[in-house]
């Protein structure tokens, strides 16, 4: 039993949902109790998807236990097939259904559905979300792929992007552009955007680009083993990694890659004088293994930061992460306990955190600026604009994103000059980023407000003042103003709770 407050990864079936939702014409029937449908909102709210994830949950209840959960599952399978007519059906169990051992795979097989059915083993009490995605996609590839002639043109598959992935949508586009500039076409991008028919054609590509080892490595290894498709080991995030990636690809398919369009603004932005203030800033880096390692390389070699802490939450990448951190003279932090991560951050006191949504909150609490480099992420990390992490545009996006939470170069100097200034001091935070500034009070000062009132000669009675404080801070200022205006217009000299609500009703819109 492990006490946990926040988790970096969901259970493995959420990984399976990420694969199913990323693909098209696939449906997942998940044997699960009511409540597990919360997973839908990750996709419809956080990622703003315009359709429900293609998942049917059996939503069994206590009264079904022991009697007919198995027939409930079969019914759900048949109805899901009839309604959604998928080309591929995935079946699996969430943590609770795993305990009642109904064997979804076996049950689905007896139904004789006219489409391939892939049973998923998702050990909820041992593994997590990334494993669930990796395993699900591997099983799909194993079921649907078949030996094919290689295409006459040089082609590759993009492997690993899923729904709810950190910038996966844009990375796919950016990678396609980069590969096209080298004269390489994309055969299939999967799971994101692929149909089962696309997966059938996966073996005709010359090689695989493993974009995210977390969610695509098992499939890549299988494809290498079965169809002699090599896969790339470099994840092209950052200028140095892009160049290594291009070299790796050109060796795999034996082409001259001099046409590769790898131009990014990052090297010049880092070299321009304003960026001197970035030099040797102390950064702490934490995320999934892939994003954390690529970030560390950029931080050190492409911006000139000093990396003072490095780690990942996914144990699957612990070994490469440890080896990599050692080259920075660091012991990697491998942990999925956010309290432990917080302790480390507190101990090394970095000037910038590059992390996940968790570290953003840790940073907020500790007053340390943070930029997000990895899942888990929240709705603001699915921007409307094109903002990949991979490829040349990814490098541009990364420079901008990391620098944004920091106080700008000249401003930092001015802060040192005017250290004693009452409104221009380091506690005030970056001037372009007021809302996120560390240590700033969100409420207008009470004394100020009282002064104003004294001028207007309208007195807030104690109870009314107390009542006002109960109103959320972001509308409190407006409520105060409206009430005073209302009192003034009506010739009141005092504001009581009654006046407060009279005014509220008066201004109701």
């Amino acid at each position, binding site marked *: 039993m492990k006490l946990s407050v926040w988790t970096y990864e*969901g259970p493995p079936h959420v990984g399976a949902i990420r694969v199913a939702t990323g693909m098209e014409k696939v449906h997942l029937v998940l044997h699960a109790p009511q409540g597990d449908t919360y997973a839908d909102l990750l996709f419809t709210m956080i990622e703003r998807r315009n359709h429900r994830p293609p998942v049917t949950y059996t939503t069994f209840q206590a009264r079904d236990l022991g009697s007919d959960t198995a027939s409930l599952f079969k019914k759900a399978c048949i109805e899901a097939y009839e309604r959604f007519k998928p080309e591929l059906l995935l079946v699996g169990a969430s943590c609770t259904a795993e305990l009642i051992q109904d064997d979804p795979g076996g049950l689905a097989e007896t139904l004789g559905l006219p489409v391939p059915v892939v049973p998923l083993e998702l050990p909820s009490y041992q593994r997590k979300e990334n494993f669930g995605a990796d395993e699900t996609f591997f099983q799909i590839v194993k079921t649907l792929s078949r030996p094919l002639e290689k295409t006459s043109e040089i082609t590759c598959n993009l492997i690993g992007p899923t729904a709810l992935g950190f910038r996966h949508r844009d990375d796919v586009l950016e990678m396609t552009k980069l590969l096209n500039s080298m004269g390489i076409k994309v055969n299939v991008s999967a799971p994101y955007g692929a149909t089962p028919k696309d997966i059938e054609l996966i073996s005709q590509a010359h090689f695989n680009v493993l974009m995210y080892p977390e969610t695509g490595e098992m499939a890549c290894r299988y494809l290498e083993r079965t169809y002699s498709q090599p896969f790339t080991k470099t994840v092209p995030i950052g200028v140095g990694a892009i160049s290594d990636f291009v070299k790796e690809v050109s060796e795999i398919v034996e082409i001259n890659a001099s046409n590769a369009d790898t131009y990014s603004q990052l090297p010049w932005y880092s070299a321009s004088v304003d960026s001197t203030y970035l030099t040797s800033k102390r950064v702490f880096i934490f995320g999934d293994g892939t994003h954390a390692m690529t970030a560390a390389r950029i931080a050190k070699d492409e911006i000139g930061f000093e990396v003072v802490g490095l780690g990942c939450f996914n144990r699957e990448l612990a070994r490469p992460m440890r080896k990599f951190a050692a080259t920075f003279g660091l012991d990697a932090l491998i942990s999925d306990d956010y309290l432990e991560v917080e302790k480390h951050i507190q101990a090394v006191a970095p000037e910038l955190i590059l992390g996940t949504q968790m570290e953003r909150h840790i940073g907020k609490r500790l007053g340390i600026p943070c930029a997000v480099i990895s899942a888990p992420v929240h709705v603001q990390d699915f921007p409307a604009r094109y903002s990949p992490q991979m490829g040349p545009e990814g490098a541009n996006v990364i420079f901008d994103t990391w620098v944004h939470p920091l106080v700008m170069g000249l401003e930092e100097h001015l802060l040192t000059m005017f250290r004693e200034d009452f409104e221009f001091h380091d506690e005030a935070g970056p001037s372009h980023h007021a809302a996120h500034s560390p240590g700033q009070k969100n409420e207008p000062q009470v004394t100020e407000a009282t002064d104003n009132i004294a001028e207007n000669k309208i007195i807030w009675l104690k109870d009314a003042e107390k009542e006002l404080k*109960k109103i959320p801070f972001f509308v409190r200022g407006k409520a105060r103003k409206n009430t005073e205006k209302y009192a003034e217009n009506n010739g009141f000299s005092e504001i009581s709770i009654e006046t407060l609500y009279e005014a509220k009703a008066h201004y109701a819109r």
Partner: protein
Amino acid sequence: MSSEKSLAGCMNAPVLKERGQHEVFCGLTSIIWLHRKMQDAFFLVVGSRTCAHLLQSAAGVMVFAEPRFGTAILEETDLAGMADAQEELERTVEELLSRRTDIKRLFLVGSCPSEVIKLDLATAAEKLSERYFPKVNVINYSGSGIETTFTQGEDACLEAVIRGLEPSNERQLVILGALPDIVHDQMLRLLEQLGLKNVLVLPQVRVDEKVSVGSNTHFICAQPFLGASFEEMVRRGAKPIFAPFPFGANGTTAWLKAICDIFGVSKETFDAVTDAPRRRAEIAIEKVSKILTGRSLFLFPDSQLEIPLARFLNQECGMKLIEVGSPYIHKQLVGPDLQLLPEGIIISEGQDVDKQLDRVFDHMPDLTVCGLGLANPLEAKGLTTKWAIELVFSPIHFYEQAADLASLFARPINRSEKLKIGRVA
């Protein structure tokens, strides 16, 4: 309270009972507001990684500041033998209590996996209560999805709290239901102005607020989803007060009136206290609800607030009801609201989400109230939606919030009318 059209309303109307995929939260989700309301309590879910993930996904970033809840995640080793799991739980509680010395009430919250493996949390709570007496009171209840839907988690929690209340013969009023602070205080102020003494509220903000129960206790629910707590109060000898729920001007007046009738508050006092706030609520509602009048409404099952809210939106805002879905209908509790619903609408209980979606597309209502999993997909298909979850987090009860409540529904319609750029997703 003067709907003279029909006394029965929808009280005896047939209920469409459905059993299919339920697109609803489980009872654990209630912890998100309960842990804020009960300031010396900690909620320890004994469950799986899914439970922990649900809590953080549903909570989003709202409560990231030091939450007073956590999950004891069951692992492979715990599933092997029961004795181990009990010991592990005790060790986890010890770890927690040594870190959080401010905790006075610890709720051990059962989940789907803990129920299925029949982990005996009741015995564990008893044992732990003895061990940490008198510093920490350990209470258990189940918020599992196989037994509870969303707000029923609060119900199960309160039921457990009521079970542990001291007996008392004091003539008193107990109000059931967690309310936002501002609403809670307004309610107490109104009741005080009405001359009521001995008013107690469950759940208590802090454990030192003594609440007792007995045959001289009268009680009323401020939330419609407290069926099990209601039954437990009755079992403890307390006498229920029935009324429409205090939403809008009419709802609030009827709710207060029902209390005043029991406690013999005079009509003069009642009118003197309620006239002004009622009138301003009516005026404010009228302003806000213009955009709602005559529009059609479809409510998906979510929190059991649906029937009282439908009553408010129909009776006080002039909306036309198509379907009112509720995860569970406790006829005694929501009866007074059901009676005020117009005949000829669909009342549904439980859910088969795909069939319900078919019905929503058949009717294409002007406004659809639904959960977060459905809202964007429906918006993308041209429907205007209101997230139901906001209704359990926002101050919506009583006179002063009546117009706010109406505007929660008006805003999405307002937005749809303002946006001139289509909505291709």
